[in-house]
């Protein structure tokens, strides 16, 4: 699997939100403004890469040698949650600007299924560490892309006179579905 295939495949073809339907919660929750969605995207790139690295190492260095692979899900959730909290504390101490930029979004990602999903998929697909890291970054970029595009549409829709029963969540869900329908066009772009 070449890096090019992994990158195009995870950003466009199997977009984590629009094709695999993971991370829908922040996708709907943090997409009312483009600027916040960019911040959220940056936080996801950061956390997803870090979490995949750590869980990959735990899987290969701890779970597999001890033959406790069945603990995978539980351990990963715990590791990701505590990792994010730890990163938040460290950031607060050493880099106030970065903390300010990512601050609100970091706790939101703690229980994001997209982060856990990528960590698990990397193991399931038997990727090498380098592949796994590229896969994680590409998926996070794919998430950011979907989020920013969706936020752009929602910003425009906020100015539009939507019929009353459709305002808010209904129109957001319908738009998300239509966006996913549009992204079907990328199917098969890489093998």
């Amino acid at each position: 699997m070449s890096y090019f295939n992994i990158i195009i495949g995870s950003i466009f073809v199997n977009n984590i939100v629009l094709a695999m339907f993971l991370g829908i919660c922040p996708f709907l929750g943090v997409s009312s403004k483009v600027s916040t969605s960019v911040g959220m995207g940056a936080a996801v790139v950061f956390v997803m890469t870090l979490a995949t690295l750590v869980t990959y190492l735990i899987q290969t260095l701890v779970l597999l040698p001890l033959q406790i692979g069945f603990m995978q899900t539980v351990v990963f959730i715990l590791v990701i949650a505590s990792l994010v909290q730890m990163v938040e504390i460290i950031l607060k101490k050493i880099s106030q600007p970065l903390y300010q930029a990512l601050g609100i979004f970091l706790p939101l990602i703690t229980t994001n299924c997209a982060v856990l999903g990528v960590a698990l998929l990397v193991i399931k697909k038997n990727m090498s560490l380098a592949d796994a890291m590229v896969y994680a970054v590409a998926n996070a970029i794919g998430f950011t892309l979907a989020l920013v595009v969706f936020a752009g549409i929602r910003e425009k829709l906020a100015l539009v006179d939507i019929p009353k029963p459709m305002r808010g969540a209904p129109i957001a869900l319908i738009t998300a579905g239509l966006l996913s329908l549009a992204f079907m066009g990328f199917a098969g772009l890489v093998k």
Partner: protein
Amino acid sequence: MSNYIVSLSPHAKGPLTTEKVMWGVVIALMPSFAFSAYYFGIRGIVVTLVATIACILTEFVIQKYLMKTTVTAFDGSAAITGLLLAFNVPSSIPIWEVILGAVFAIAIGKMVFGGLGRNPFNPALLGRAFMLASFPVDMTTWPKPVTTQWLWNMGASVDGTTAATPLGYLKEGVKMGESVTNLVAASPERFDHFNLFIGNVGGCIGEVSAFAILLGGIYMLYRKIITWHIPVFYLGGLALITGIFWAMDPTKYADPLFHLLAGGAMLGAWFMATDMVTSPMTVKGQILFAVCGGLLCGLIRMFGAFPEGCSYSILIMNAFVPLIDKYIKPTRFGKEVNYG
């Protein structure tokens, strides 16, 4: 309309109304309609009429009974959606599927957002994407244009008079590992540029004849309904990307002229990418939108799972329009412009 405050005179009053623009587009679609009637017979006419009527009716019912607002279903925009949807399906499609697609296009693609001018995606293309996802076989079985001429060919998809479109044939062939040179030699009539130009090939109802679409496009340019930027840059983007790959290896990729004339590129570039609601507002934005759409269309055609990427490329670019409009803004009146 009572929400608007009428300011002091003088008022500029333009002759261009929504109705005039929309019915102008409908007139521009008539050459393609005539060609489709010639190539696909009564069946093609029926599918087109059913889709158009279904779209207008859906809009009428929603406006009259659900939204209880002013009914603007007859301003021509629903008719355009219906016509374009029908032009994007094979003539052998079951009638009920067309109706379903039309209802989806208008209800989900347009009316849930409040109607004309508010939808982020082109409704006709959404209808087509919905139908392609729901009825993939019916949507990709094309009757041969000439054999069904003037026949009510209900069972075109069963009695063996079907034929792959040039793009579908190309995609299947390349998938099998065949070289383009051999494919052209095996079926020269599909790759004949003149056949593609006048529309003597398999395909969706309204997309086959590039000539008829160009006639409509020139009419719209003459009426100043559209500007030349989007069609020219869309087709330019498509020609560029397919041309690059063709120049690299003509045995593996078809030539750019073939890509311009085959499939829905012409219809998409002239009638769907230019949709005023779902294209960027500034000329710079439109150029960016159109070039990216053309590139995407070529990439999907050459490497994607679908033989035809035109409709998806426009849908995907529709999604980017709010961002394009956000970051490429028109120069404010009174601001100094750098002409250097």
